[in-house]
């Protein structure tokens, strides 16, 4: 594994795919205009990222422009095969935004069940989830509202009581 930063994913994931092992941080500036995906693909993507990370006690993925992050990161960072897989996946779920919430969840669940056994580059759901989570949780909204983030912690305290409702550290 040889990855000093990988251990927080936990022992089971640690031994898994190298592609999943890469820690992604978020977009610098999210343009409101997509540059890679078309308008209808972006509508599908927006629905999908919010299905994965909806509004809870923190904003939904789309509120942090996670779908725009994916629009930038997929063409730049994903392998050619993963890019193809991703585009085909969006096409197969086109129109999901017009379905009822329960049907949306059911459709993505079915897709997840089917894709979870596939290798990373062939698995639309794995790629989608990877980019959604890394895009959102390392955005300013995700890191500071959904999680806890300290740019300069000021030192290290190794053993403190967990505070009520304490969020996990973003990094």
């Amino acid at each position, binding site marked *: 594994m040889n990855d000093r930063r*990988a251990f*927080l994913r936990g022992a*089971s994931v640690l031994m898994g795919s190298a592609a999943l092992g890469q*820690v992604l941080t978020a977009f610098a500036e999210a343009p409101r205009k997509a540059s890679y995906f078309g308008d209808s693909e972006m509508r599908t993507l927006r629905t999908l990222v919010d299905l994965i990370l909806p509004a809870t006690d923190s904003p939904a993925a789309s509120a942090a422009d996670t779908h725009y992050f994916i629009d930038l990161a997929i063409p730049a960072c994903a392998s050619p095969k993963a890019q193809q897989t991703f585009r085909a996946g969006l096409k197969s779920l086109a129109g999901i935004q017009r379905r009822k919430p329960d049907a949306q969840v059911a459709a993505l669940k079915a897709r997840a069940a089917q894709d979870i056994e596939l290798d990373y580059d062939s698995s639309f759901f794995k790629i989608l989830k990877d980019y959604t*989570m*890394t895009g959102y949780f390392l955005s300013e909204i995700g890191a500071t509202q959904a999680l806890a983030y300290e740019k300069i912690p*000021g030192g290290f*305290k*190794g053993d403190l009581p967990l505070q009520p409702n304490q969020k996990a550290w*973003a990094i």
Partner: protein
Amino acid sequence: MATSNTFDAIVVGSGMSGGWAAKELCEKGLKTLVLERGRNVRHIEDYTTALKDPWELPHNNRPTNADRKQQPIQSTLYLYDQSTKQFLVDDTKYPYEQAQPFNWYRGYQVGGRSLLWARHVFRFSDLDFEANLKEGVGIDWPIRYADISPWYDHVEKFIGASGENPGLPQLPKQILQPPFEMTALEKHIKREFEKAFTDRRLICSSIAVLSREHNGRGPCQGRNQCARGCPYTAYFSSNGVTLPAAQKTGNLTLQADSIVHSLIYDEAKQRVTGVRVIDANTFASTEYFAKVVFLCASALNSTSILLNSRSARFPDGLGNDSGELGHNLMDHHNGGGATATYSGYLDRYYKGRRSTSMYIPRFRNVTTREEKFKRGYGYEVYSGRGNWTRGVGSADFGADFKNEITRPGQWNIFIEGYGETLPYHDNRIWLSHDKLDQWGIPRLNISMTYRDNERAMAQQMADDAAEMLTAAKLENVKSFNNPIVPGSVIHEMGTARMGRDPKTSVLNGNNQVHAVPNLFVTDGSFMVSSPTQNPSLTYMALTARAADFAVEKLKRGEL
């Protein structure tokens, strides 16, 4: 830029060893030219990514396909991302030949890899210095712990290191600031080890990261973003610590973008008189002259320079009377280890990002003799509670998933052995004189493989790791034993080894080339064996010791 071409001393390289050579020689009054092949990196000012939030980093922090194309080797490094890639070379510009697969991670800039290192600083002991002699492996080290001990003191006092002295003979006592604190799980493991073992301990690693202020530097701010360069100078680097000390004397001339092609040898004097330098950008050639030369270009590059310095007296490379130049290449291996989880201590957490590991010191072949392999290994230990990345690989999604994943998960632990590699004569480097880089310098070939001793050790590393985590009552214990590409631990050692006999070694016990008294080599190339411990502290100590020796000899007119 140098205004004159003649100096008292020339130091080739500005990294871990070069920075120390510069400081010591300058402080002893020598006008010193430091030549760095890469660009200048000014302390703090040029740490352009140091204070970026994740969302501020260009195009996210994940390497792009274009990055991987430009840096196919460097981008496989564990710390490679958008915030660190500027301190690793462009592989397309600096090609090398891999007769056997070898990951050569390089930082060509002022400060070299002292900007990027993992900062562990343990001393070697006589268990290490005597091992070759006792086992009949390779050749004997020409020094013992007593020779280097005062220089370890000297270095530790200056660099400022923190950690824990375990009181074990294999890890001699160091001058250390208080250690960084253990997590709840680490405290648990420490307690369980005390109950289960007499020979195994969990301690905080000795690390060149300040837990307290030291000479106006630090302390560590808990960012764990060291490899971007530290704006608080809380970890030791040449840029932040030794080069400024050298600068302060007024004796330092630091010249970046200066690639040393070869050394100039004077047969009549039997001395080196200087170096031939090619400007990295203009390709102009210049010669610089000095009374003494220190090669500190990193193990493989210092040896390359010697191999490329051919003359009638030294047709096979400068100082290569023994035929050992380029041979006995070593790196550590870290393929064996284990992971586990723990379902307790859910009411404990931590604050800040600790930039060091915990450590399990070597226990194999210390007081007893193993049958399956020679030497030993220590473990780096990393623990923490699961963060959001634990959910990336699952099929779950939605509000419940998000609520779960944004709270601290269970405790995880990852331990990884760092094992000694024996010196094998045919693990080696050599030059292809028919394949030149754009500066006209022959390409380096590398051939290194791990052997039966390392393979047997790696299996034991994995088995011991699982045994220890099980004994500590952890859960889901899984051992691993992964194949390792040599070079991956980034501890290139050997290829210009020290020794007592000029017939079997390149350097003597003062890091002096046997047949060329005014030439010193003080980076990892001098290593005679590859003790378990991380080697940089020893490079620094022997560099300071060699500088002291060289200046004394110079004063007496004996160089």
